[in-house]
């Protein structure tokens, strides 16, 4: 896209620089830097313990990094370091402009309230006070993530794992975020459900022009979802590039190992 002559590259939505996280003397991740443009899907792959989740938590404002900057193009302050914002401003920005899909829906949903209320909560957090309108957009979104809208008032525990994940996706998209973080969104699901959810996610991301950072250890998920890949090992980024390029022609020995370990049926 950047190569098209005469077209100005859009300003980055998210810009990470020199991001380092130490847990005492244990390394979480070291010196990570990248730019993410609006509408771009970035995959972070690597084995367990390679620092993927640490990196995601640092970028999403959940874990203060030891060093480095995470700059986000906020609506209210422009491109600014999220850890330089005051806590209320940062929380508001997270609420208004971001979404976070957890691997385990129990982490991302309120299990005590109905699926419908879970989906509508971000609207109420942003100040919506009209029940009828919220109800309608909740129904629209349940429909969009292909859930039975008659089950709107069921508690999350009465839904299957795949359905819970769909509720979580709807909850994180209903308020029109610009950037969504996904931590192994299909991790706990069986393959057929996984495939359908991925399909849905891909469609939604395209339609809404969302920027997504998706963490996964599943190469198939990375291949399907991501425009660009970052391969991590031991807390460091060892290879980065377009998804097809990284997966079809891996350069780093670890990436080669990773790609060759995918089971073929």
């Amino acid at each position, binding site marked *: 896209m950047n190569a098209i002559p005469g077209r100005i590259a859009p300003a980055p939505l998210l810009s990470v620089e020199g991001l380092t996280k130490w847990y005492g003397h244990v390394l979480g991740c070291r010196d990570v830097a990248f730019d993410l443009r609006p509408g771009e899907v970035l995959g972070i792959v690597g084995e367990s313990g390679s620092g993927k989740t640490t990196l995601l938590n640092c970028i999403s404002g959940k874990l203060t990094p030891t060093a480095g900057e995470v700059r986000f193009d906020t609506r209210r302050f422009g491109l600014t370091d999220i850890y330089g914002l005051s806590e209320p401003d940062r929380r508001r920005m997270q609420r208004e402009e971001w979404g976070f899909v957890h691997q385990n829906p129990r982490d991302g949903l309120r299990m005590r309230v109905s699926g419908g209320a879970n989906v509508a*909560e971000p609207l109420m957090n942003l100040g919506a006070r009209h029940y009828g309108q919220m109800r309608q957009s909740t129904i629209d979104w349940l429909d969009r993530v292909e859930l039975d809208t008659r089950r709107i008032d069921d508690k999350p525990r009465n839904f299957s794992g795949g359905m819970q994940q769909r509720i979580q996706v709807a909850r994180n998209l209903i308020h029109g975020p610009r950037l969504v973080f996904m931590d192994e969104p299909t991790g706990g699901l069986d393959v057929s459900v996984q495939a359908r959810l991925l399909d849905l996610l891909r469609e939604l991301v395209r339609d809404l022009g969302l920027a997504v950072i998706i963490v996964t250890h599943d190469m198939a998920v990375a291949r399907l979802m991501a425009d660009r890949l970052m391969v991590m090992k031991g807390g460091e980024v060892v290879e980065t590039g377009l998804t097809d390029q990284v997966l079809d022609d891996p350069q780093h020995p670890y990436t080669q190992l990773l790609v060759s370990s995918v089971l073929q049926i």
Partner: protein
Amino acid sequence: MSTPVPALANAPERYYNYAYLDEQTKRMIRRSILKALAIPGYQVPFGSREMPVPYGWGTGGIQLTAAIIGPDDVYKCIDQGADDTTNAVSIRRFFANVADVATTEDTGEATIIQTRHRIPEKPLKQGQVLVYQVPQPEPLRGLEARETETRAMHAYEEYGLQYVSLYENISAYGRIAATAGYPVMVEERYLMSPSPIPKFDNPKMAQNEAVMLFGAGREKRIYAVPPFTRVRSLDFEDYPFETQTWEETCALCGAEDSYLDEVILDDAGDKMFVCSDSHHCAERRAAGHVGPMAGHALDQDAALKEPAE
């Protein structure tokens, strides 16, 4: 050889300290009360003491009363609106004993009214203090279990979550069915639990002349609504706040505008509705108001009590 134990120099004073709590504790509680009054609706932590009743029986309210009461006060204590329930009687007797104050059942006469679950029907006046017993001071607790998180929500005025409970109510019952402990906004700043009073009483809190103090003993929190403060019950634009209404009137005094309790009379399903505020009802009957079941055995009991007062 044994020496006789010398008589203690302060022997005459060796009874309970005035109003049960020691002076330092009362001072600490008064400071918390002042802070609570300065920031209406804000939950002030305080060093709650062990009281001679179990948690849940009004330890927070008793400590507040003990900190503000003086010998000239007139004390009234109600439980669910009634002066004659066990809890109210024992707490009233407790303060008559340790604070040597006059007690009353008359809402207008009292200077300190300690209450659980009701605000008296008779409008409160300037100079009166209403002390609430609060089991759970945090209105958001049911939805958010982390104290660190609810504190941040209060600090940054992030109250969207409270509406989730109202949303749940409407989707389940078609209306906001919550009846007690209905959350309110105080001065459009702090979200506050009004303690489990019925939402019927919520409008009475707004612009009230009296000082309203809330004490949660187990949770160690004090909060307050000073006189003439805006108090707004939460609602949705399309589901406005409403209080309970009854088709019946009070069976004894015929009141149409008071909060009614349903009393089952026998196994045949007979029942009556009576004012929950026992003093309000007695006063109306004394003034000659007659309900549809006036003269009932329950009324007789009350009538017998009247001359004794």
